[in-house]
């Protein structure tokens, strides 16, 4: 199945939720690459490079090949910024972010970004493109031939639970919020990226749709052989407060961890 749908067995997925964000990294398909797929080396990020306004401070984190990483943190804790530092939407004010061993500042950002899938809260679908054109955008930028793109769009739409015959020619305005997010995920997976970043992908949805999609994506992650979250990273005001495998994380004494664990009980169907 995995081979057939052509989603890399090692794709990195980052997933976050409103308030308590959740990011999963699934891993890379770069067979030849050894070492850390993504590495933060003492990274700080200041808005407009003003030192007083640090969004991220002193973050060091290594994400090896094959790891599934979840980022948690309150709104404003820096989850989105951390993700944007990976695909060079932001460049670090201090330190460096390495992707495949190379600092993002030295990457050709276009090449870097085409290898990273990115899903955001509002989906950000192109309103003037059909669903098929949205999903096929990166393949078309990468100059795939028509047939290959069409086939790829079809399999991805099926993967996210949308019938291509029904949805391929629709425009985003003709979709529900949940359907738009599915298309957003399919679009991010289109070119079989090494890294998939998901920034609160279901944060803007109503609770029922959100829970539904979360369940479905758990199943999708299973098909991608990425069911097991290897580590959870907790962000607190731009710093890493805790990094631990899920079971260990749930038992930690850190006040932010306790606050999060308490909120889990309050929200049925919460992650982890």
């Amino acid at each position, binding site marked *: 199945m995995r081979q057939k749908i052509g989603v890399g067995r090692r794709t990195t997925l980052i997933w976050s939720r409103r308030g308590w964000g959740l990011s999963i990294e699934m891993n890379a398909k770069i067979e030849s690459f050894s070492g850390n797929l993504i590495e933060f080396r003492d990274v700080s990020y200041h808005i407009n490079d003003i030192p007083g306004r640090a969004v991220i401070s002193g973050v060091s984190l290594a994400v090896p090949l094959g790891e599934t990483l979840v980022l948690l943190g309150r709104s404003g804790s820096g989850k989105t910024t951390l993700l944007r530092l990976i*695909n060079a939407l932001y460049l670090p004010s201090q330190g460096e972010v390495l992707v495949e061993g190379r600092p993002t500042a030295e990457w050709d950002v276009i090449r870097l970004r085409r290898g990273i899938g990115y899903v*955001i809260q509002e*989906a*950000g679908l*192109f309103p003037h493109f059909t669903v098929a054109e949205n999903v096929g955008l*990166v393949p078309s930028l990468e100059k795939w031939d028509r047939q290959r793109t069409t086939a790829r769009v079809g399999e991805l739409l099926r993967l996210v639970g949308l019938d291509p015959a029904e949805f391929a020619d629709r425009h985003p305005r003709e979709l529900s919020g949940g359907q738009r997010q599915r298309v957003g995920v399919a679009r991010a997976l289109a070119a079989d990226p090494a890294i998939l970043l998901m920034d609160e992908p279901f944060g803007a949805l109503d609770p029922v749709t959100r829970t539904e999609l979360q369940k479905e994506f758990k199943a999708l992650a299973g098909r991608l052989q990425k069911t097991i979250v290897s580590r959870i990273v907790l962000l607190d005001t731009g710093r890493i407060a805790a990094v631990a495998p899920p079971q260990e994380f749930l038992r930690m004494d850190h006040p932010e961890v306790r606050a999060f664990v308490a909120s889990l009980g309050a929200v049925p169907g919460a992650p982890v």
Partner: protein
Amino acid sequence: MNASPSYWSFFAEHRAEILGATADHMMLVVIAMLIAMAIALPLGMLIVERPALRALSMGIANIFQTIPSLALFGLLIPIPFIGGIGRRTAIVALVLYALLPILRNTYVGLSGIDPAVLEAAEAMGMTSAQILFRVRFPLALSVILAGIRTATVITIGVATIAAEIGAGGLGTFVFRGVALVSDSLILAGAMPAALLALLSDCLLGLLERRLRVA
């Protein structure tokens, strides 16, 4: 005013002249609009990311738009090269008038795009040129076209007044008619000018609706 059969017979008798003046009028408008678009569209793209240039260029365009048309013609006449009596001065004035609506709408259209869409475009590895031509422009097109439509209607109107400085066109009949107290002569200029404005407004409006997204 007396739009009686005498007008129709006048129109019939001077058909060729009226059509010729209409063609002249349209030429003035088309030339002025092409020049105005050639200036305002690229400038509109440029000022999206440059606030200082935006304030300056919008300010200047706004000044031209505010000067009464006859005064603007008057101010241009003494200027060497672009001034003087005739079509050239008229075209310069028409261009200056058309700038603001096109510039403003180009800027508003290009900058008013959902930030999530632009973020997605950037994160997917589209180059700035690809974002401009495949995302920003198509999404801004109906707004830009609304500006072109406004500018066209203004230009058709102001071009009528341009007859006063010897630019030709339909205004010639109107001014001659006023001087000779001839309703027929006035209407021979005013009717086609009004029709021209209404027709182009209508057609561009249709196109604008066709291009609107979401």
